[in-house]
């Protein structure tokens, strides 16, 4: 790879913005339901000037859970997008969310196929004090990393981090894995079941800047390379629990509460038992703490997650021109013929 030449990537002609994948994460629900619909209507009304416009789908992912203001009704929708679940045989009475995942895969995918949407942005909120986070499977999807860099530049007052899940694409399970590119936009702190205007404003700005970037990218802009700090998930830590009842016996220590992305060192306070005792982090390696006290993770056995941080170099990129895209297609066709 010639470091001076930008990497050329296919244009993003179809993108999807999804909210309500968890029905009680309201900022995304409101954004998708109300605002983006207006934006889409406005842009559909624009004159056809012969240019290819990006088509944007807005999706309310889990309408039943939204209606009940619950994370999910039968099972967590955002764990239903493994290839096995999407393509596997369904039982006699499959959970609502499994059927819905298959529907969404038809609408936005199929996952892994050439017809899948180019970009999925899935909106989430968290009770943890995480600011704005991108969550992605890959640490070399230049599209997602460049969108993140763009938001960092445009929203300098918002704490922003890029989280890399560190699992292979084959094991991906979430809605954003259906598109050719995808990421979750996660914003906190926000109690579930409510919407704070400051959180909504950040999410709204984040989505707007993302759409601006897509427009610029598609019209041929070159985005310079640079550096992005990436947090790669290493492991999760569960709460201490009562061996008989399995109920938790401690809460996140007050020194750690709300300090997402701080470096947790061996022997730092981790939990405070209900009887007042401090339990300390016994790992050997200092790691960055995140998703500290996200309420929906109690049932998943996660009090917090731990990550390593590293600085990643990203190349300059630009969209392929029409000629380059056609050349690619011809090359692909002739390969298939051979």
């Amino acid at each position, binding site marked *: 790879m010639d470091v001076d030449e930008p990497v050329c990537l296919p244009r993003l002609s179809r993108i999807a913005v999804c909210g309500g994948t968890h029905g009680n994460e309201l900022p995304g629900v409101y954004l998708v339901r109300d605002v983006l619909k207006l934006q889409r209507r406005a842009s559909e009304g624009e004159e056809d000037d012969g240019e290819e416009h990006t088509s944007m789908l807005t999706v309310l992912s889990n309408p039943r859970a939204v209606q009940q203001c619950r994370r999910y009704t039968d099972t967590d929708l955002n764990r239903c997008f493994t290839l096995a679940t999407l393509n596997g045989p369904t039982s006699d009475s499959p959970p609502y969310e499994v059927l819905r995942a298959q529907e969404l895969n038809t609408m936005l995918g199929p996952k892994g196929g050439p017809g899948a949407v180019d970009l999925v942005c899935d909106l989430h909120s968290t009770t943890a004090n995480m600011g704005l986070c991108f969550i992605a499977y890959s640490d070399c999807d230049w599209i997602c990393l460049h969108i993140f860099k763009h938001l960092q530049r445009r929203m300098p*007052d918002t704490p922003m981090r890029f989280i890399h899940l560190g699992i292979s694409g084959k094991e991906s399970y979430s809605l954003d894995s259906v598109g050719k590119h995808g990421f979750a936009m996660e914003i906190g702190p926000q109690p579930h079941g409510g919407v704070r205007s400051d959180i909504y404003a950040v999410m709204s700005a984040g989505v707007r800047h993302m759409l601006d970037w897509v427009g610029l990218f598609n019209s041929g802009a070159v985005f310079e390379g640079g550096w992005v700090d990436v947090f790669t998930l290493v492991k999760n830590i569960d709460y201490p629990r009562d061996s008989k009842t399995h109920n*938790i016996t401690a809460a*996140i*220590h*007050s020194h750690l509460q709300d300090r997402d992305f701080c470096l947790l060192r061996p022997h730092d306070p981790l939990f405070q038992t209900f009887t007042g005792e401090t339990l300390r982090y016994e790992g050997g390696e200092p790691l960055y703490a995140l998703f500290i006290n996200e*309420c929906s993770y109690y049932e998943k056995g996660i009090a917090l997650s731990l990550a390593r941080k590293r600085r990643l170099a990203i190349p300059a990129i630009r969209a392929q021109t029409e000629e380059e895209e056609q050349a690619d297609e011809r090359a692909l066709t002739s390969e298939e013929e051979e």
Partner: protein
Amino acid sequence: MGEPRSQVSSLLSVCDSTTTSQPDGGGGDVKDVKTQPHLNSEAGNFSTGASAAFSVSTPPPSTLPGMSFHGSTARLSEARRVAIFGGTHGNEMSGVALVNLWIKNSDDIQRRGVDIKPFIANPKAVEKCVRYVETDLNRAFTPENLSASGGDEFPYEVRRAQEINRMFGPKGSPEAYDVIFDLHNTTSNMGCTLILESSKDHFNLQMMNYIKKAISPASCLVLLNEHPLLKYSTCRSVAKHAVGLEVGPQPQGVLRSNIFEAMRVILKHALDFIELFNEGMEFPPCTVEVFRVNERIDYPRDANRNIIAMVHPNLQDCDWEPLNPGDPMFQTFDGKTIPYQGSCTVYPTFINEAAYYEKQQAFVTTRRETLAASSIRKA
């Protein structure tokens, strides 16, 4: 023996701002519960309001059952049977954790001469970590529900209310428990709040005064809900003295150490008060500042009843701070400000409580008042 306290002839309501004593401010562990993490700062700052609208009222010397006046001191029966309810709403975690802790090990809640029963009010909701399974238990203790006969056709929480009424009531009877503490959390930035259902309950007023002084300089405010239309039939109303304890901000389903600790400390002082009272201590007359529920304000909605605006950033997290006519109140999704259009300064609370979206409530407004409690002593 002396006359009962003379009464102020009418409520005075002063809408122009005048200086009065500030709401309790200052630091301390209990106060820190109000620190709200914001996107752009390490910790939110809570500033207490400077101006005030207040009114003064002295309750007429009416008597409650079990209460008699000797001189100006009210003689009240001992509080022998006390219950602590957690999990009235199954996703309000501090009360659930505290009650489970005390069921397992009751050392911290032992007091001489008092039977204290920790109790999980809505176990099915706790198990699912939801507010309620079929209907809100904390609205279910209506006379109609409690007297209804029947079985499975009633929602779970109505049947549970009847069971709780049998165990801790019957409501309104001499056999009812003396005191029930009902532990709640809120997503609102309310700090520690004691909830009072009657301005004439001198026992409760004295207890709340005791608690406020015990935790000072940390603050614990008192919310009085005696509003004929807005008050509701709570779980705790089964007892002779109902005490609500609301601590926030804490998201539903989440357990925060500082919130848990604050609730534990307040209950400790409440139980100390009961022990002292039962041992014969006389509590001299006192005044208690309360915030009296005034009005419920809903979100602006469209024709389909969908919410079209959010609590304004200037109002978000500003529970107990004065809201003046013309101040920003809501912000539409496209950024327009909707101002408060009441005629008078009010003190909003329960601002953006997530559980109240379905109850058509963005916040309640309150008016400040000072209640006088007569001196009390056990009979």
